[in-house]
């Protein structure tokens, strides 16, 4: 059984989260909490651990519907990429982004330049 799909999804006021495939998580809405790590860091860490346990070769994080995030939320994506980079058996962390959302273009382009060995960026819409 997939551990990835068994990860408990947190319920948050401004962001909707769905596990849509055995290797895909979809986030939409906004992340404006002062410290989103309280709700999301544990969730991302659990997804990461499940992906390793499931021996996934790729995890797809669809953030194309995230219209606004604060700097603390960007750091959560940085943390996730860092966890992958620190693993011996890595998977590719593929962010599905929207070319219509400004923060996604700049932040993921910059993150890609720092973590290109573990990241992939795919643009939709």
């Amino acid at each position: 059984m997939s551990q990835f799909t068994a990860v408990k999804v947190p319920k948050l006021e401004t962001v909707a989260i769905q596990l849509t495939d055995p290797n895909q998580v979809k986030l939409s809405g906004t992340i404006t909490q002062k410290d989103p790590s309280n709700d999301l860091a544990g969730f991302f860490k659990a997804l990461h651990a499940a992906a390793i346990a499931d021996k996934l070769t790729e995890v797809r994080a669809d953030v194309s519907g995230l219209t606004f995030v604060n700097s603390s939320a960007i750091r959560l994506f940085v943390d996730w990429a860092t966890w992958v980079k620190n693993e011996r058996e890595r998977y590719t962390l593929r962010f599905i982004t929207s070319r219509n959302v400004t923060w996604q273009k700049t932040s993921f382009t910059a993150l890609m330049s720092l973590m290109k060995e573990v990241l992939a960026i795919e643009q939709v819409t």
Partner: protein
Amino acid sequence: MALFERNPPPSSSSPTTTTTSTANAKSRDGGALNGRTMVRVICTAGSGALEYTHAFISAYAADHLRGAVAQRLSVGAYELLSNALNFGSVSSDIVLELIEADTLVGVRVSNEAIQARISMLSEHLLRLRSNAEQTFLEELRRSVTGGIPRPMLGLARVCHEVGLALELQVQDRRVSVTAQCRR
């Protein structure tokens, strides 16, 4: 939070004013933003005003300004207010204003802060003025390596990500940061 209830604290009788800008001489987004205050919100450092104030300002801007401008100012309002709430002095109000002039529109946040914070902010703005993209990358890199002091991504986002010009004005201990662009 109060809307139009209190006035900002009076300035000192013999103020020393300094100004720092991220806009270069050729930028059309730079220059002093003097115009009509569309919204003024007053809140207190350390309060939980960030999320609902941001939601209100974003909705107001979306209703009164072009969509692309509203989206940019939404990021500016969030990051400026977040900094003020985190680092401002609790002894005086934080004032957020949405201001429109003939050609410019912007969000201005003012608060009191200790001198060390003001110096750090001035230096950071000079780095952003020199190269906003490089500064954004450096701050992101510091996020990866867990830099101390804490990475300062917020203003780098405002400058690089949404392309707003930042104007810093310091009058004694009162700091005003304006994020602005063409209407």
